[in-house]
């Protein structure tokens, strides 16, 4: 089978996965105790008024009809009206997604760079490996909100190098307005050459991105280090040394090129997780992303908003997985598709 056909089948099977996820979400939300109307109106509301609101929100319809409505909404990208805010969920959610994507983008870059450096050094130098092990344990053990708070304290409060919360200072945005093209402030600012916004947004990104990047770089560097050592102690590396291939070439062409294969899978999973919204980090830094949105919506029993967030999360995971599989098949000649 050709690569093109492989890609097509992979993409074509993705919606099926999304439908399964949507169904599970729908069921769980209905099974969950609590009623959105009582959350909106309070426990002592007039029963007649409750009925009226239920009708308005479509909650009096039979479940299967609600399910069909929900699926149609999901695939048309409308997601219905937010019970809490009384505006279309789509208006609320896309800026949140953009914020999360932006944070993920920078944390992934930081994590991958950290992982590459740590893994390359620790597979090459025994002494550094001890430090690298400590580093990994630290990334597992340090709670992300605690690390966030400490960084805020040091770099935000004492040194005053970076702002501690939000995506951008509102006055900067008012003085230098940006047209949302991608929704990612740094990218949009860059496209328009809007330097004040770009720099301000970047400053806001530093602390949350470093926090998140540090946390996920542990798993990444460990995977990469393991795969590097496996590759560098293999027979084909021994054979390459016996052919007089220089060490630098061996490290990159034989070590890294083989080790990058398992690394991409782990990195892809981590990035997919981040895209779903890093709830703790986003809360710590007041980052208006998907994670905080999901938590707020669940607490308010805002069904449509929760469903929307989960649909987007499902799409993101499926897309990232598909992309990872395609990259995997491109770099590993042994993969049969």
């Amino acid at each position: 089978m050709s690569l093109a056909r492989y890609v097509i089948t992979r993409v074509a099977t993705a919606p099926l996965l999304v439908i399964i996820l949507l169904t599970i979400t729908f069921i769980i939300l209905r099974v969950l105790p609590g009623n959105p109307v009582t959350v909106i109106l309070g426990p002592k509301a007039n029963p007649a008024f409750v009925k009226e609101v239920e009708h308005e929100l479509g909650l009096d319809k039979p479940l299967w009809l609600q399910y069909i409505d929900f699926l149609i909404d999901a695939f048309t990208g409308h997601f219905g009206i937010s019970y809490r805010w009384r505006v279309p969920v789509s208006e609320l959610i896309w800026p949140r997604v953009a914020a999360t994507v932006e944070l993920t983008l920078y944390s992934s870059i930081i994590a991958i760079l950290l992982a590459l450096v740590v893994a390359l050094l620790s597979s090459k130098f025994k002494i550094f490996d001890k430090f690298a092990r400590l580093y990994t344990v630290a990334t597992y053990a340090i709670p992300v909100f605690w690390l966030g708070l400490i960084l805020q304290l040091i770099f935000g409060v004492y040194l005053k190098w970076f702002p501690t919360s939000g995506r951008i200072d509102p006055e900067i945005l008012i003085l230098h307005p940006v047209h949302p093209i991608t929704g990612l402030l740094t990218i949009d600012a860059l496209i328009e050459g809007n330097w004040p916004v770009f720099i301000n947004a970047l400053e806001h990104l530093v602390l949350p991105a470093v926090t998140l990047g540090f946390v996920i770089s542990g798993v990444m560097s460990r995977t990469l280090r393991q795969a590097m050592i496996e590759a560098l102690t293999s027979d084909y590396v021994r054979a390459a040394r016996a052919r007089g291939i220089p060490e630098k070439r061996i490290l990159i062409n034989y070590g890294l090129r083989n080790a990058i294969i398992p690394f991409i899978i782990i990195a892809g999973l981590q990035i997919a997780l981040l895209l779903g919204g890093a709830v703790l980090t986003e809360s710590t830094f007041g980052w208006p992303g998907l994670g905080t949105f999901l938590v707020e919506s669940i607490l308010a029993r805002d069904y449509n908003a929760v469903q929307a967030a989960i649909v987007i999360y499902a799409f993101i995971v499926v897309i990232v997985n598909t992309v990872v599989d395609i990259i995997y098949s491109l770099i590993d000649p042994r993969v049969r598709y």
Partner: protein
Amino acid sequence: MLIKVILHNSMDVKILEIIDLEIMYRVGRKSVIAVRDVSLAIEKREIRAVVGESGSGKSTLASAVLRVLPGNARIVRGSIMFDGVDLLKLPEREMRRIRGSRIGIIFQDPSATFNPVMRVGDHIAELLYVHRGTRWEEGLKVAESLVKRFGIPSERVYDYPHQLSGGMKQRFCIAMAIATNPELVIADEPTTALDVVTQMQVLSMLRELRDEYGTSIMFITHDLSLALSISDNVTVMYGGEIVEEAPSDDLRREPLHPYTQMLLECIPRLRQRLDFRRFEKESIELPSTRGCIFSNRCRYARERCLREEPPLIDLGGRRVRCWLYE
């Protein structure tokens, strides 16, 4: 004790000369001797077989020549002269330039030779790029014409290692080993992983190599009959020492050392019933005495053999380590 290598050869005919080599492995806290008192010389255009069972030190010898011994190995003494230069005294940078360029190597397991994410032709292109500075596309062209000569369609150069059969991979390995036109090729059990038909192809390729390019070949094997069929001279190793060395024809006609005799008796001949019983019950443990290392398996072992280690006795044209020929 040490008998100096045959000295009637002038320096320029020898491509490789190993002198009084001793190598130890650290295993846990103990040291184990892998190679001891080994001196041998390989001439230009010579095919030399080094025969021995597992643990005889023959592969350690090969790794030592290329200086790619594992980390727990230590060269205690000796020198390895290659074209008049002691390889053991060379700085690593210069040694790297010799590996794969002036000394080629073929390993036992061809599937462990190739990087799984590189095309087989890229390996040859890389080798030429590293040692000769050849441009990559040119290297691939060289690879194409090389493998064509060994009966492989040239487009297979663009295949990945997992797409080739074992025999084809081994022929690629040989093509790669000679791509830089080396003066010496070390073949470490190159045919062990192959079927009989492919074995013969590989052997004839090696012989062709010597005949056409005058390459010297150090052919390491556990199979004495194979060794006799391809080589000019045979060195038999046992327990890390050379026990016998002779021209192949002489060795076939008249093996001197009791170990070589036993090996030869084990080679099956047509219309002959085999008697393997002799080897069946034997331990391959080396004796703990200070005497001859083969004494506990030797049918002629006398009291002196247990006490005193025999030197490698020069019988003019051949050498043997046994008191019988004193």
